[in-house]
């Protein structure tokens, strides 16, 4: 099957920043669930090595839009999509596209931390295991490296065989991020990653996102506007399936172009 994006050989522990800078181009994308028009025609360009935040009231389509990038909507009954989405120049909805390859390039972190009911080590190694990698040393190096990247290493290094379910919520979420990093994606999608966490864990995850920005392109859906203003470079405001405004975060929060955007971020509605 045709691979979507040129894959760097995985038998080497490689610095992701050496890979192609991944950007996402969206052209006139529409989404339906049966008869319901969830996304009504959106154009957007996501720039490499940036953090882009999607904000908007509940049900406005931002999670649906996010899941278009790694084709997780494919599993929803009645899903239909029109338009083009290109990742690093390749249309990811072409018939020949290998969805599993796509998901190695574009990782996802979910709202509620969802570690597998296995050990910490096995969680992080899972992505490598399903690719058929058996080199024990490589796997171990990668696991350690990823746990260090998410600042979890010191907390778990004494027993990597402990069950992941025994970790705290914040630790579990960082573990899920480490698990995503292990397959060396170039883009990381995050769907409200801290909404189930306490403030200190949230701060740790935000710090992590800030660090990850150097090597990865990050898109994050958030309900928390202060979070969007704290950590993102670009912000997109969605409402009822439409992209109302998309621009630099500092502009959106000091002087947005659309009145609707201003009404939302100042709390006058939504």
């Amino acid at each position: 099957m045709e691979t979507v994006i040129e894959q760097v050989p995985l038998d080497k522990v490689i610095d992701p920043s050496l890979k192609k800078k991944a950007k996402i181009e969206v052209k006139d994308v529409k989404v339906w669930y049966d008869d319901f028009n969830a996304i009504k025609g959106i154009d957007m360009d996501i720039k490499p090595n940036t953090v882009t935040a999607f904000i908007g009231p509940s049900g406005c389509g931002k999670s649906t839009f996010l899941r278009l990038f790694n084709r997780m909507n494919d599993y929803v009954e009645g899903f239909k999509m029109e338009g083009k989405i290109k990742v690093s120049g390749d249309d990811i909805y072409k018939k020949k596209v290998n969805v599993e390859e796509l998901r190695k390039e574009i990782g996802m972190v979910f709202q509620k931390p969802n570690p597998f009911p296995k050990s910490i080590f096995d969680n992080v190694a899972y992505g490598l295991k399903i690719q058929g990698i058996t080199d024990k040393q490589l796997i171990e190096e990668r696991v350690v490296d990823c746990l260090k990247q998410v600042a979890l290493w010191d907390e778990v290094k004494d027993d990597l065989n402990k069950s992941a379910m025994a970790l705290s919520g914040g630790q579990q979420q960082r573990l899920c991020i480490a698990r995503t990093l292990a397959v060396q994606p170039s883009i990381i999608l995050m769907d409200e990653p801290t909404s189930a966490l306490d403030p200190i864990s949230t701060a740790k995850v935000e710090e992590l996102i800030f660090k990850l920005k150097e090597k990865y392109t990050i898109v994050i859906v958030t309900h928390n506007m202060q979070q969007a203003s704290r950590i993102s470079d670009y912000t997109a405001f969605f409402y009822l399936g439409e992209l109302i405004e998309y621009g630099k975060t500092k502009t959106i929060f000091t002087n947005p172009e659309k009145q609707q955007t201003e009404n939302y971020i100042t709390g006058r509605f939504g």
Partner: protein
Amino acid sequence: MANAQYQRDLLNESGAEMLAICTSQLEKAKDAFLNHDSDLAEEVILNEIRVNALDLRIEKSCEKFLALYNPVAIDLRFIMAIRKINFDLERIADHACSISKYVVEIDEKIPPHLFEALQFQTMFDTLEKMLGKTTEAYEKKDVKLARKVFKKDKIIDKINADSFAVLETEIKKDNNIISEALLLFSVIKKMERVGDLIKNIAEEIIFYIDAEVLKHKKKK
């Protein structure tokens, strides 16, 4: 966000109150000075306490708003603007107060012909109009009204520029008026500063409503 909205409205009203108080202080100071009315002047000096109290209240409210409500966009610009407006208004009231102090401290009346030569009435009237326009712009959130203030300030600048030559001439005519002349010169300088301060306030209103920064720019 009802609480934030309510607090914001309160602050808005406080801003309007400050504008009103400082306008009235300036008017009274003008009347006191032009008519050498020391009773009126005393009033102005006593009122200064109210002005200062309101100034502190507004400062504190701004700090509280920033800490509690995380304002962004227009709300944030409003807080930033109102702090500066408040600061400038307090300075205007200060000037009004020191003019009133002159009236109280000095016994002799100033010869009316000097007032005329220096165009004091025009100057005060223009300042009053500028403050009036600015207050209207603040209440109606109207940028066009705010912009009209800049032109008027040129009148003040001209009067100020001419004052040196005028006073020189008057002193040469009559040496005895030197102390009055020096006093008048000082008051004109203060009024020129008041004109600048009102201009600043207009700039802040334009920043708050339109996000346009006019500071240090040439105005048309």
